[in-house]
């Protein structure tokens, strides 16, 4: 199997991993935004969400990075403007995932966290990434 045959499969896997990653980040953002007060089952909820984050969302993020870099190298896309902007949006999403993951750990430890408004940012980055990957503006 040559590179031209493998490329669409890598791309499909990259998109699948990105969908799983973004949905995980969005789910945690919604959970942290709507944390119930004085819920006796909160610790159990946090544990199961953290397990999902550790076992599914984080590996999906690593897969997105690994496959994304492989696709960019094989397709010689690094000089393209759209990819550079897309990389910035992916870095923002990955950073938000790291911050949320830390906040989940803090909530699990019994500390209250201030609700934040990252949902709009996550949706905005996701839309931007999809548009840039499909339309490929700026070369």
């Amino acid at each position, binding site marked *: 199997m040559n590179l031209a045959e493998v490329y669409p499969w890598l791309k499909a896997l990259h998109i699948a991993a990105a969908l799983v990653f973004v949905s995980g980040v969005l789910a945690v953002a919604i959970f942290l935004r709507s944390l119930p007060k004085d819920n006796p089952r909160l*610790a159990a909820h946090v544990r199961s969400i953290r397990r999902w984050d550790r076992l599914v969302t984080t590996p999906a993020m690593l897969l997105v*990075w690994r496959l994304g870099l492989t696709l960019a190298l094989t397709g010689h896309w690094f000089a393209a403007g759209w990819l550079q902007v897309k990389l910035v949006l992916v870095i923002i999403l*990955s*950073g938000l995932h790291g*911050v949320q*993951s830390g906040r989940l*750990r803090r909530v699990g*430890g019994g500390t209250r966290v201030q609700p934040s408004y990252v949902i709009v940012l996550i949706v905005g980055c996701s839309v931007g990434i999809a548009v840039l990957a499909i339309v490929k503006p700026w070369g």
Partner: protein
Amino acid sequence: MTATEDWRRDERRQLRQLELAAIVEGTTLLLLVGIAMPLKYVTGSADAVHIMGPGHGLAFVAYCWVAVQSVAGGGWTRSEAMRLFLGALLPFGGLFNLAFLSRKAARLR
């Protein structure tokens, strides 16, 4: 296990991940600068650089990500957080932070 013990165990696990990420980041940079690049200039073959370059890039991203995750979890002073991120930016900075991370982990025991 009490909630405090749970929290201490989680924090120790987080610090171990950070130590591991720092070691991998520092080692891949060492391999890139110490072996792959000299090989390129001596033998003219860039294969090792092509392998180690992206490998170190991923290790660098992973270290930054674990550092963000650690600081966002709380329990870090501003200067400790600065030290962590400087460790990511300076060559081998992560390795220089290992002793500091071990001391921090020891305080949680």
